[in-house]
């Protein structure tokens, strides 16, 4: 019995018929679904909300296993048809073999989807916590995303921006309840001159300290270019 307890995957139990000969279904390689389970475990073992490198290799292996399951499934059904058996009503070893392959395939699909979907949720979260533009994401995060995930990030950010422009409000500031409208910040990177906040130009040289409106400073803080000084 193999079970995965992640909420998004749901408990899926694949219980092979004990009378079934194992070599008929698994070609003696690895147990069905082992790779898919590794993929999902990779998600769960990381720190919560922390992206890891997109595991292209493992993902493709699981997809390959799905195709193998499907081939085995088809050939078993074909075999039953050739023997003149009704697949819907016959309960022989071939039927259960096909069923196991079907269930394994579904389980692998759920693992694959849970992997990609959960990462997509983390990517949605990046848009809220870091920034809406790809260049705003730090290098370390960008290199963990697959090419398609970067595309997804861009499209999802565009959807958020389109909503914000419709309601005419920027929802990406003011993430924590305001205590003081002004905060003290230190510039961590050389931002240079030419940045205008609240209609006033200021020289944000590295290590300089400023007293800014919270809403003006927040975008810089979230990108790690400034830090708030407390106490």
């Amino acid at each position, binding site marked *: 019995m193999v079970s995965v307890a992640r909420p*998004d995957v749901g408990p899926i139990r694949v219980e092979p018929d004990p009378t079934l000969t194992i070599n008929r279904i698994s070609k003696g390689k690895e147990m069905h679904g082992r790779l898919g389970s590794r993929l999902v475990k990779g998600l769960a073992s990381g720190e919560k909300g922390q992206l890891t490198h997109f595991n292209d290799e493992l*993902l493709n292996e699981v*997809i390959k296993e*799905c*195709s193998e399951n*499907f081939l085995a499934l088809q050939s078993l059904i074909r075999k039953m048809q050739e023997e003149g058996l009704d697949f819907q009503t016959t309960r022989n070893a071939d039927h259960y073999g096909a069923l196991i392959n*079907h269930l394994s*395939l*579904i389980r692998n*699909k*759920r693992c*694959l*989807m849970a992997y*990609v*979907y959960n990462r*997509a*949720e983390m990517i*949605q979260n990046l848009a*809220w916590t870091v920034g809406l533009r790809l260049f705003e994401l730090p290098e370390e995060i960008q290199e963990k995303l*697959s090419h*398609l*995930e970067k*595309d*997804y990030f861009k*499209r*999802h950010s*565009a*959807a*958020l921006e*389109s*909503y914000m422009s*419709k*309601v*005419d*409000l*920027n*929802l990406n*500031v*003011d993430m924590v*309840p*305001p205590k*003081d*409208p*002004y905060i003290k910040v230190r510039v961590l990177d050389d931002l240079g001159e030419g940045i205008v906040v609240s209609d006033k130009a200021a020289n944000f040289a590295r290590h300089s300290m400023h007293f800014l409106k*919270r*809403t003006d400073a927040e975008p810089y803080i979230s990108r790690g270019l400034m830090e708030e000084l407390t106490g």
Partner: protein
Amino acid sequence: MAEDIGDGSTAEMDDYETLMSTTDAELLKTAWRNEKAAPEILQFQAPLVKRAKEQIQLMEETVEEYEESGMDPLTVSLYQMDLDRAQFLLRSYLRVRLQKLEKYMFYIWKNESLWSRLSDPEKMFVQRCIDDMEKHLEETVLSKLPDNYQSVRRQSVISEEDDMVPEPQLDTFIACKARNRFVSLRLADSERPLEMERHDVSFVLYKVIEDKIGADIDLV
């Protein structure tokens, strides 16, 4: 404590609280709290949001005026603080909703009664979210799977209903308070109804008070 002072002032306190609780700032705060605590998306408070936006604009103009007229900076910063709080509340309210939409897009999209709770921009947002997510899942995984297993919402063609849609956990307990008057709740597992006085905080199943949120009951 107010109760110790006597009946008269308790009633006065209640009146004062009732009056305060009808200002838009308080109403928005309540709507925001409800939305934050509810596992499901609630009815979008369209008129309230519209009024809050108008008030924020008015406050912005006032603050600007005061700044220009050289008023005492401390006074201006007090107005600014009030403005910041109002803005935070409005933004956070809309944000909490968007984050629920992101999480349960497929579920909300197929449920008519939930769908009707969204504002028009929210509906468009969900539509786009779904298109984007579907495209992403299809390109990364589904297009590489065998024919009968390519659906986003169903495990395979054999599935008779959507069995891969993330759903919120509705079978859960939440803390709530009676809004104004006495509320009596029918609980499934007890013969006596639960009687809630105003200000009483109770822990009940979300399902039991689901349709009373924002009317007789508020979440905390």
